[in-house]
């Protein structure tokens, strides 16, 4: 089976600080994966490296049959690998509709811009109500919606979401989780980073647990469907 994403022996960091140490993950066509693990252990760094914001110091990344290890972020977006970053503040002075329209600047997204904008507004009616509001004045939940909306405007072939429900009230969290579920159901494969393992189990087929910049465990839903068991693994690992 063709692999949509294949990360091999990836190392990366910030200047002299190494964060990722030989990470191997992959995503087969037709599946979604989740990443979880304690705070500050490299999940965000992994996504940033995949999307080209950080240059890896070793290893390789292949997407949809092409080597993208050294590709520029804009080219990676144009290939369809889209990353909605954690706590995204986007562009403070830019209005909601401007931001969404701008997100279709990549060649792959240009043509369908109008149609995609309509479906983003269908998914998040709240964004349409606030279409002329500046991003700076949006609430945390609305920003998260705008960020995911931007990712959808790019027409993702694979969508990476970094903690899409971080810091949201339980009600908003449910709303966003439902929207992400809709995106998955529409056939877009996902890479989701979340602390909430239950949420991840419902959304994805396999989980990777990341600790100290390494994959320490891979959990297939078919083998470990019991979420309590996963939690046991999780906390067992964290509190050495």
């Amino acid at each position: 089976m063709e692999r949509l994403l294949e990360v091999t022996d990836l190392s990366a960091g910030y200047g002299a600080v190494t964060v990722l140490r030989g990470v191997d993950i992959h995503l087969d066509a037709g599946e979604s994966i989740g990443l979880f693990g304690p705070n500050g252990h490299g999940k965000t760094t992994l996504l940033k490296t995949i999307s080209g914001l950080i240059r890896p110091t070793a290893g390789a990344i292949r997407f949809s049959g092409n080597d993208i290890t050294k590709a520029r972020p804009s080219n990676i977006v144009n290939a369809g690998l889209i990353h909605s970053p954690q706590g995204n503040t986007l562009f403070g002075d830019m209005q909601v509709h401007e931001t969404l329209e701008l997100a279709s600047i990549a060649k792959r997204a240009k043509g369908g811009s109008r149609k995609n904008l309509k479906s983003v507004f269908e998914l998040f009616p709240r964004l349409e109500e606030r279409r002329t509001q500046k991003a700076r004045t949006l609430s945390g939940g609305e920003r998260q919606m705008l960020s995911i909306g931007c990712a959808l405007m790019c027409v993702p072939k694979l969508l990476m979401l970094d903690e899409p429900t971080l810091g949201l009230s339980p009600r908003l969290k449910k709303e966003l989780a439902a929207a992400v579920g809709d995106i998955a159901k529409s056939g877009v494969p996902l890479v989701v980073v979340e602390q909430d393992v239950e949420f991840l189990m419902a959304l994805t087929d396999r989980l990777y647990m990341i600790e100290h910049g390494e994959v320490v465990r891979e959990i297939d839903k078919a083998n470990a469907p019991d979420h309590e068991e996963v939690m046991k693994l999780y906390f067992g690992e964290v509190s050495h």
Partner: protein
Amino acid sequence: MIDTLIATLVSGLVLGSLYALMASGLSVVWTTLGVFNFAHGALMMIGAFLAWTLVEPVGLPLPVGILCGALGAAALGIVIERLLVRPYYGNRNMLLITVMTTLAAMIIMEKGAQMIWGARLKQLPRLIDGEISIASATISAHEAVMILLAPLVLAAIWAFTVRTNIGRSLRAVGQNQDSAALIGINVPFAFALAFGLSAALAGLTGALLGSIRFITPAMGADPLTKAMIVVIFGGLGSLGATAGAAYLIGLIEAILVLWLGLYWTPFVLFLIMIVVLVFRPNGIFGGNQ
């Protein structure tokens, strides 16, 4: 009395147009890259010399010369970005380093112009000959063209950065480079585009100014200083604020020249700016962020 007033107003408008064209270019680079381009005045001078070379020795029509002056300056601006600004992206001291590198570019261009074109004063013909009388004040038709052109150019830049995705990408890159890259914006291209556009504006201004002032290697120094005052005075960033500040400063300068004479005008102008910045650190039109 009324005559002097109208004459002052008109001369303030001409200065305001000049400053608006210069300052908007400076502001495009500032909002996209967070860099102050000290070579902006020298790029203006290059635009004037290029236009002069094509019009006088070569004999092309003036509009062609002006256009080529703007394009030539744009090309040079892109080269400056590539060689002297791009290597320092992501550097913590980028702002200070690029002050030095763009100052170096300014000196190289000024000395280069001196070597190529010599020190003899040059001047371009006017776009339109003749004079226009407004009430009892007269200005040259060429100055009238500048007064009309400046708001058009500003409106075009505004429309570009608000209505088109390429133009919006400049604003996006200026506000959040990582997020811009993640929605598919080619960040290095946006940087080059901002520098090219800004330099084109400088070149255009120089070629227009070359008909009413002498073209010399140092002709960009004073417009650069004024453009910097305008950009800071207006509150860094917004195009509308920059334009407003340009006309305000042009007018103040014209009034000061009438009232105090050329000698004291720069001094009082700076004094006004310092006082304004004490009370409104974000500029006269800037928000309180």
